[in-house]
Each structure stands twice: as C-alpha cells, then as structure tokens.
C-alpha cells in the first residue's frame, strides 16, 4: 500500500526535474530487499501520472538483487530477504545491495536546434 506514497514521490521528483517538459521515459532502480513491489509501483504510476507531464511516460524498472557482506569474515553472498547467515556461521551482516530505491534517469522531450 505504501507504493502509492512512493509513486507520488516519484511523480513529484520527476515533475520538478522536467521543468514543464514532457517526460518520455522514467528509469527506476528498486532493490529486491527494499520492501517495494515493482508491479504495485507500475499500477500506481498509471493512475498518478495522469494529467501530469509524465502522462505518456514509459516506466522502466531495474530490480537489483540482494547482496550481503559478512561483518566477521567479509564474505559476500546473495540474499533474497533482508537477513541471512554467512557460511562462517555469523548472522551479523551488512546489506550492500538490494535496498536501492532510486530514480536513475528520465528522458524528456527536448527541442534540439
């Protein structure tokens, strides 16, 4: 349900950056451990972008896999949830990838002379 608020943020930030120009494409990076469902964002995007400069924009989402780093042995390993156990037995880990929640780039309609 928080995807609605998240998508409102996306539309607000992109609208600001576009400075009134039409947006053709929005590229997001959403980590698989970020607790955000890309499909829910897509659904909300269609609704919230209506009557804004993003109305016709194509939404692209990069989903980043989760990677943890063990604080004890510094081993890096894949995780599909925001916790996990290293092969050394420690569960003290840092998540080094997978929590991204970013607008990476936007493509705006531009008059090039």
């Amino acid at each position: 349900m928080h995807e609605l608020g998240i998508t409102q943020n996306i539309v607000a930030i992109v609208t600001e950056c576009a400075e009134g120009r039409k947006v053709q494409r929005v590229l997001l990076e959403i980590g698989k451990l970020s607790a955000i469902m890309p499909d829910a964002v897509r659904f909300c995007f269609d609704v919230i972008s209506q009557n804004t400069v993003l109305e016709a924009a194509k939404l692209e989402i990069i989903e980043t896999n989760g990677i943890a780093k063990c604080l004890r042995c510094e081993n890096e390993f894949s995780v599909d949830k925001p916790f996990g156990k290293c092969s050394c037995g420690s569960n003290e880990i840092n998540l080094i990838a997978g929590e991204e929640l970013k607008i990476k780039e936007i493509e705006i309609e531009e008059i090039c002379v």
Partner: protein
Amino acid sequence: MCVTCGCSDDNSGVRISNLEDTHTHTLPDGTTITHTHTHSHPLDNGNSTTNIKASELQDLELKNLELENSEGNSKIYPKIHSKIHGTTLSIEENILSKNNLRAVQNKEWFTQKNIFALNLMSSPGSGKTTLLAKTINDLKNQLVINVIEGDQETINDAQKIRETGCSVVQINTGTGCHLDAEMIEKGLQELNPPVNSVVMIENVGNLVCPALFDLGETCKVVILSVTEGDDKPIKYPHIFRNSDVMVITKIDLLPYVNFDIERCIEYAQQVNPDIQIFQVSVVNESGLKSWYEWLKDKII
C-alpha cells in the same frame, strides 16, 4: 546548437540522416546529460544556406518545417537540425530523499532540545497505547513524556493518552498507512515539547510501511504481543531489522497462547543481532521495571 546542453552540430554541410546518435555531456554544474538525436532531413539539392537562430526557430512549428525560398516556391530545408528528441537526464535521486531530509531536520531538532524520541511501531492491537498510557502514568513524576498519536481515523487513542495528563497531538493519516517526517514536523509544532523530555510517537498500526519512513526519531521500537505469531520477526523482517528495540507485550497471557517466546527472540536476533529486547505485561506489571530504567537512562 542544442538549447539544453549547448552542443553544436556540424554546420558545414547538410546531413541526410542521423539516427540514434547518442552523446554525453557534462554540464558546468556536474550534471551528466546523455541524449539521442534522431533527425532525418530531406536532401535540399545543395541550395539551403538558410541559417535560423535558435530563438527564432522555437517560434516556428517544428514538425514538417518547410521554408520558402525567397527566389521561388521550391521548398528548402534548413541545414541545421530542428526536431523534438529525447534528452536523458541522469538523476540518481533516492525516492525517499524528501522524507529523509525532513527526518534529518527533525533529528537535529530533537538533539538540540535533548529530547529522546521513540517511534513505536507494531501491528494493530499489540497494546501500544496501553503500554504507553501505563508508562506515562508510572513515570509522570520522573519524566516529562509527550505523545504524537498516529491513526488512520478517530481521536480515541489521543483521548486515552490525554487522560494520563500529558500533552498529546493526534495525527490522522486518512488513507495513509504510516507517519512520515513531515507529519512529525507539523505535529511537533503543535506539541511543542519542552527540553530534556521524552516524545513518544505512536505510529499507525502496521508492520510493513512504517519501516521505510524515517521520522528523525532517536530510537525505533517494534512492539509484538504474544497473541500474535512468534514468527513475526522473520515474516516482517524489514521492521525488525530497522528497529533498535523490541518489546514483547501481554506476557501474562503466555500460559494460554501458543507463543514460543524463546523462538521469537531467536528469530528477532536472526534478523537483527543487535536488537534490545524487553518482555512486559501491563496487567501484572512484570518486566516494566527494566523498560522504565532503560527509558530513564536515555534522558538523564
């Protein structure tokens, strides 16, 4: 010249077509722009020497731009390109950056006033408000505690807290499923808590969304009652991972429910090895003392 980045094209000759010409510029402010030029200019028989300034061109209809030659009616095309194309702006902005910025401001505000601010999060019905009211009543002679209540609707919880005599502000989020930093900023303006005090923020009952939204609190507390499943920490790992403290409530009911408290603690530590854990019952008052001592230590 491109009106966005100032890039110039070669004006020495007519370009017949230029598809998918991608180039990248770094502007003086460090912004990187990558864009594509997708232009297709019909051949103009070598006669087009017309130069049009960018400012003039913007006033013209750009689609199907056709200019008349002063010497006749034959159509010529400007040799400079003039098309609508896509410009890619690299943004790399965190979607929650606005909330995070406000949260930092709230945090600074709390630090300056030496206010210990707790963000209490749980599913609905875990006993947050009951624990809060009990804590305020028992510590009212030792600590100044004020409350920000978050619920979708009603001022019922605020009224319950108000009965303890402390100041309380109710935030109703309507359809919103969590409090955010801006709501807290506004709530604090209303509440105006004194220096050296405690602010308890009771978040909307929800184990998912509040984990994402930093409020600027000093400490995140997740509350779990024994009438819920003991595997909640691994079912909702985000909130348990992001919390500093877990309070297990209603432990007087342990003999009557199928809740393995050791297993629950094990799960919580699996998700968050550093989490501090309290086990309390407001009914028989067990465990409250250590919770109170911990709170008092944070202020004095």
